């Protein structure tokens, strides 16, 4: 016999142990390699996304993420009327309407109607120009009517609809169990 039985058992156990150690080491090394590959892939993805975010931040926004508050709208009306030299007493009222979704898009269109009495064409045009300077607000509808009753000449009754977009992706419906 090349080796005694005891020697053979010791050799076999030692070889098996070392082989197990080698296999475990290989498995651990593979895990680390895979983790490094994933880390590299994640980094590249994050770098790409970061570059896209930087580019998108330069793009003018045409929507907002939430409904414009009453105070904010009031502030804008006040500023625009001040610039247009429009007396706010001519503003008969503001009538916010229900937001509606644009088709299957993630956008909601929120209209708000403004009603004016006895304003000149230049006043209403200037007012609408100033309030529409914000890219997020658009004058989507305008109606000019000759006023009733004893109104000054060259004045109009105006109804303007201001519209702004809200970015609101629809929530994914949960699958029922």
């Amino acid at each position, binding site marked *: *016999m*090349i*080796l005694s039985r005891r020697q053979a058992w010791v*050799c076999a156990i*030692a*070889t098996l142990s*070392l*082989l197990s*150690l*080698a296999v475990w*080491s*290989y498995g*651990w*090394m593979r*895990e*680390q*390699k895979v*983790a*490094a590959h994933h*880390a590299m892939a*994640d*980094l590249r*993805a*994050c*770098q790409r*996304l*970061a570059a*896209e*975010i*930087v580019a*998108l931040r330069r*793009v003018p*926004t*045409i*929507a*907002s*993420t939430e409904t414009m508050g009453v105070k904010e709208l009031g502030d804008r009306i006040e500023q625009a009327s001040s610039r247009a030299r429009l007396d706010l007493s001519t503003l008969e009222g503001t009538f916010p309407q229900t937001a509606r979704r*644009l088709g299957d*898009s993630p*956008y909601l*269109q929120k209209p708000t109607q403004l009603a004016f009495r006895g304003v000149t*064409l230049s006043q209403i*045009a200037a007012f*609408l*120009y100033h309030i529409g300077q914000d890219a997020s607000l*658009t*004058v*989507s*509808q*305008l*109606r*000019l*009517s*000759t006023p009733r009753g004893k109104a000054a000449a060259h004045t109009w009754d105006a109804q*303007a*609809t201001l*519209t702004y*977009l809200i*970015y609101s*992706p629809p929530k994914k419906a949960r699958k029922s169990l």
Partner: protein
Amino acid sequence: MSGHFMVIIACPRWRVARVVDGEVEAATIDGEADATVEQRADVAHQRLVDWGYAGGPILLALASSSCLCATIGTDDLERGGRRQAMGYRLEECLPISCEDVIADYVEAGHGQALGVCAETEWLRSIVGAFESVGVPVGPICPLALLAAADVLEQHPDAGGVLIGDGEVGRAYDLVELRGDRPARWWWHTADHAAVWTGVAGLSTESDRPLRLALLGCPSLVRDDARSIGSIELIETETTGQDTAGTRHAARLLAHGALPWIDLRRGALAAPGRYEVYRRPVLALAAAVVVLLVCASIAMHLHGRQYAALTDELRQEQVAVYRQATPDAGLVDVHFMERRLQSVKNQLAGLGGRAIGANDPNSLVPASALEHLYDVISGLPQDLRFRILDLDIQPERIIVDGEARSHIEAERIAGALRQTGLFEVDPPKTQSLTGHEGVSFLFSAKPVDPGTRPKEGGRR
């Protein structure tokens, strides 16, 4: 039957023997009486080579004077360590120590075994001397037992063998045979009385006459044997123990059979046929161990390098994330990509690119203010008319007014049509009651901006 050789280790000189064409040839090795074992082995090797020895194991036959023997009881020996137990029994019968001798045993039946031993170091020196000259040693057997085995081969019913050393009669071996095995063995030196006492003792132990073979005994001994009534002499053709022993040795070597007693065992055991592979196998095993250890270390180090690289990449990822979202809180690295994707989607949505539209502004309705400008600037300047109601909607413009005549109402609508900015329907007109003039009502549809005629100047 050439190719099988035997060397008889005897004092004062060794002998070599072989079987050629059925005939035994033996020769005494020349040399000084005080030559060393190595010198004798070298001379023996030369003689063997002269006889055509070309390698292969030889059989060493020991003279009886080199061996000690005893018949021991084996009935109450335990199974485990039987050989060791028989060694202790032999120790009780002989002036030896088990550690100093090589012993072998042959079961003789009736709860007895014949044990034979010889000095270990003496045998080792002889074996080493032959192996150093390139002669491998096979079995090591007492010559007397080889000769007795040859006699038994020819006369299976022999009950004993008396072996002498020729006409000289200096020493005798008496071997009791029981069945096909030796049971007892005596060696006497020139003591005829002791020899015949032993023979007589053997002959009286059985009811039947003892069938005794004489081998190499002088004629005087033969005559004495014939005179004992309880002995039947067996006539053998073999002249002496050398011849008989050599013949049996050749049979053993030729067929690879096991002799009764083989002292090439234990500490003197012949190397196995795989012994030559021992060193390379051990070297290979050591190499495998070293390889596995080195591979494990290398893979572990490699793994640590990958781990360090992973840490580095993750830190860089955190830096990129912080730079892209300075206001956002830190999240786990595995969620950073998803978070950045969410930020990107939101920014794209705020910029009107959420649905992948090339022109985000297509989401924004056309400004009514622009349509107002287009309408006012498109109305004719050379006509008198009054607009009562101007309703500008995203897809349609309705003009309600009064003109002096149907034709002028038509011209008003036509003026707007001619701007190319509107698709104008023919006006509906109606005469006014109570005063001159007509009321008109028409609708216009803003033309797609892409098909509008280019205009110079800013509005």
